[in-house]
């Protein structure tokens, strides 16, 4: 059966989620004709989003499903094992993608994250680089990305407080952040008693707490309302569009130019290249028909796993091992926050009701003192560290499933009933998010056995053990315990919630950016080394994971790649 060949367009963007949904805006504004291919479709806040823990967290109706559910990667922890398919993909398909249901903590990486290798060599020497670690300096520094971070904060809509305004430090913000050219467009999200108390307690023990940035409106912004703090942000969509997901921000703006066409339910199977190796278009299925969409350039903005898989599957004479794989680098340098493995959550019991039922995960207080290279690592045996995050939004099932801190003999029965009746509203948890780096023992390739419904192999993840990241997380967990104690917690327990390596919403690498094609897949602007009209968007291009959520960084990179593509197509 022949594919239906469509008229050529300037740019095809594959995936309209957090990254692709941003890239379409600078392209469309530049007057390029853009076709956005999205495997899902538009979500309807009135129908799809609920203030309901069963809907969001038990059944995962917003966070999973669609095409992603049919191509769940397999996983193993060593090359001599048979990889097994994971039960559930933490990904879904929709216009807006994962930005619909993420916590919307919206960060700039620390300047250190861009030059971990050289900074470590300068300050500590080569012995401090972890064994087997393949980390390189990024091909760009924080200063080069700063204007794009600024674009995202203003075009997507981010709330926060500057801690470093053109070099002037303000302790109300994060004094460890890199210099920014201007304030956030909106003040931080509303605080509350618990967070004010945590903030004061951190100050009292010499830390530098601040209210974390969020891609959530703290007040009406660009026609969308401010956050209503109903407490079902985690794994749920926003019922009032206060969360700045791309389906309510950059994608509608791009559509308003008249230059973007959104094609939903588009299941992309291959990126097509010509004999010279250049990308000439995309093949996709939609409602049972196969289409060929020719384009002058292609931007690949699915999730990390599908970015890698689609490049591996798109074999041709010019790219016999897949596009971008002529040096065997495709799928290498894959890593993420799960590498901390344990100690990622600390729970504390207080002697009074906290009333953090409502709020949002991003309604939080952060501490960066033990993250990045913000402290002297001499003698500690690791590099990097972790941010500490105290937050609100406690759902009732999760609240009742609390750690009992050894105060009752069992987690059931009358004594337990009395315990949760008193304490389900009196405990809080904090999140420890760790700097993580790529290692030679961790990579992705195609699974030899497991296939998707189209007969294509799914991705296979091999993730070996790490030493540096668990140490950094354990160090930070001790600091979090100290913070909770200072805040008056009567019980604190660390090490809860560490699940170890698995599929993750913070999957980084696999198509790493770099100057050297023998250690990277994409160039300094995110274009594939040997296919220069194919750009890759998303966490897969990142070379380090900061001690913080990746979305704003991959969005800034996506905008920068799109800007570069505008230049390329104009000069062509």
């Amino acid at each position, binding site marked *: 059966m022949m594919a239906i060949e469509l008229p050529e367009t300037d740019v095809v963007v594959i995936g309209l989620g957090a990254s692709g949904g941003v890239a379409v805006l600078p392209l469309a504004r530049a007057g390029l004709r853009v076709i956005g291919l999205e495997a899902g479709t538009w979500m309807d806040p009135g129908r799809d989003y609920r203030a309901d823990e069963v809907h969001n967290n038990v059944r995962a109706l917003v966070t999973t499903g669609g095409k992603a559910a049919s191509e769940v990667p397999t996983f193993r922890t060593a090359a001599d094992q048979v990889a097994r398919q994971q039960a559930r993909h933490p990904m879904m398909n929709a216009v807006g993608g994962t930005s619909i249901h993420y916590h919307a903590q919206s960060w700039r990486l620390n300047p250190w994250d861009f030059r971990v290798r050289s900074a470590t060599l300068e300050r500590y020497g080569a012995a401090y680089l972890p064994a087997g670690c393949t980390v390189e300096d990024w091909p760009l520094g924080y200063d080069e990305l700063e204007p794009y971070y600024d674009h995202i904060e203003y075009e997507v809509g981010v709330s926060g407080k500057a801690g470093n305004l053109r070099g002037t430090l303000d302790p109300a913000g994060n004094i460890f952040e890199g210099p920014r050219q201007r304030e956030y467009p909106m003040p931080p999200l509303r605080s509350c008693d618990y967070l004010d108390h945590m903030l004061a307690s951190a100050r009292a023990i010499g830390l530098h707490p601040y209210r974390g940035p969020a891609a959530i409106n703290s007040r009406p912004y660009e026609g969308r309302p401010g956050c209503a703090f109903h407490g079902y942000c985690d794994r749920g969509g926003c019922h009032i569009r206060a969360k700045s997901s791309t389906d309510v921000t950059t994608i509608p703006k791009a559509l308003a130019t008249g230059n973007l066409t959104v094609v939903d339910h588009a299941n992309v199977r291959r990126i097509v290249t010509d004999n010279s190796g250049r990308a000439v278009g995309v093949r996709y299925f939609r409602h049972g028909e196969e289409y060929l969409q020719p384009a002058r350039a292609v931007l690949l903005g699915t999730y990390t796993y599908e970015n890698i898989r689609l490049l591996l599957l798109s074999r041709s004479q010019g790219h016999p091992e897949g596009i971008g794989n002529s040096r065997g680098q495709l799928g290498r340098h894959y890593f993420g926050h799960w590498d901390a493995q344990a100690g990622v959550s600390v729970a504390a019991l207080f002697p009074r009701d906290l009333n953090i039922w409502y709020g949002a995960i991003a309604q939080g207080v952060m501490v960066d003192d033990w993250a990045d290279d913000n402290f002297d690592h001499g003698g500690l045996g690791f590099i990097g560290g972790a941010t500490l995050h105290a937050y609100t939004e406690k759902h009732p099932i999760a609240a009742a499933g609390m750690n009992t801190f050894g105060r009752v003999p069992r987690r*059931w029965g009358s004594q337990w009933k009395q315990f949760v009746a008193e304490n389900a509203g009196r405990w809080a948890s904090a999140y420890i998010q760790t700097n993580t780096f790529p290692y030679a023992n961790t990579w992705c390739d195609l699974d030899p056995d497991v296939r998707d419904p189209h007969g294509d192999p799914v991705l296979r993840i091999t993730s070996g053990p790490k030493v540096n990241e668990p140490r950094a997380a354990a160090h930070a967990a001790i600091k979090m315990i100290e913070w909770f104690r200072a805040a008056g917690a009567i019980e604190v327990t660390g090490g809860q919630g560490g699940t170890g390596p698995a599929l993750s919403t913070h999957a980084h690498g696999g198509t790493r950016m770099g100057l050297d094609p023998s250690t990277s897949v994409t160039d300094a602007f995110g274009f594939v080394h040997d296919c220069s009209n194919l750009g890759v968007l998303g966490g897969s291009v990142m070379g380090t994971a900061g001690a913080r959520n990746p979305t704003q960084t991959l969005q800034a990179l996506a905008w920068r790649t799109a800007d570069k593509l505008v230049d390329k197509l104009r000069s062509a």
Partner: protein
Amino acid sequence: MSKPESPDPQRVTDPSRRQWLRGSLAAGSAALIPLVNSGCSTTPAPAAVSALGAATEAVLAAVADRLLPADALGPAASALGAVAYINRSLLEWNQRDLPLLQNGLLALNEAAHRRHGRGFVALDAGEQDALLMALEGNTVAELPEGSTLFNRVHRLVLEGLFSDPWYGGNRDFGGWDLIGYPGAVLASTTDMQRLGQRLAPLHTSAYGSEHDGH
């Protein structure tokens, strides 16, 4: 066995709710968002079918009522609708747990017979607790996956007790009242995030007024 027609919440559409959502969006201000969901919505049909069958469901209820017994603080798990919730989940979105519960609860009942000459339901509370502790500790010889069964039932009972009453558990908001969760709202105020005192119950469901208490 045919599945009863009970609505999937994902598919429920509620024109009145969507209407005011549009209204508040048009106004572009959170101040207009009602504190609670005042729209009406489709009430789920009570499940007419027992996923486990009556006898096994009775064992489940007896287990659930030891996990959360009736006492001065309030009713037991089954009276709060936990078993009704689990039944609905097994019929709809949680069918993959059916074999574990079906086989496991049957084996638990047989283990009770072997030890006491009576089924689990007929044991006294002390005997039930002893068997459940053994199950949790994975020391019931007939049940090599005993702790898996225990953990799964424990989790499902928690869901049944503390989920939105729309699903059939947390009857009359008894679960949420027990732990002090006021209710599902569409917007919260700073006064709802004060330290130190338990909030007054709101008795509100995410699915509208039929579940706003009686």
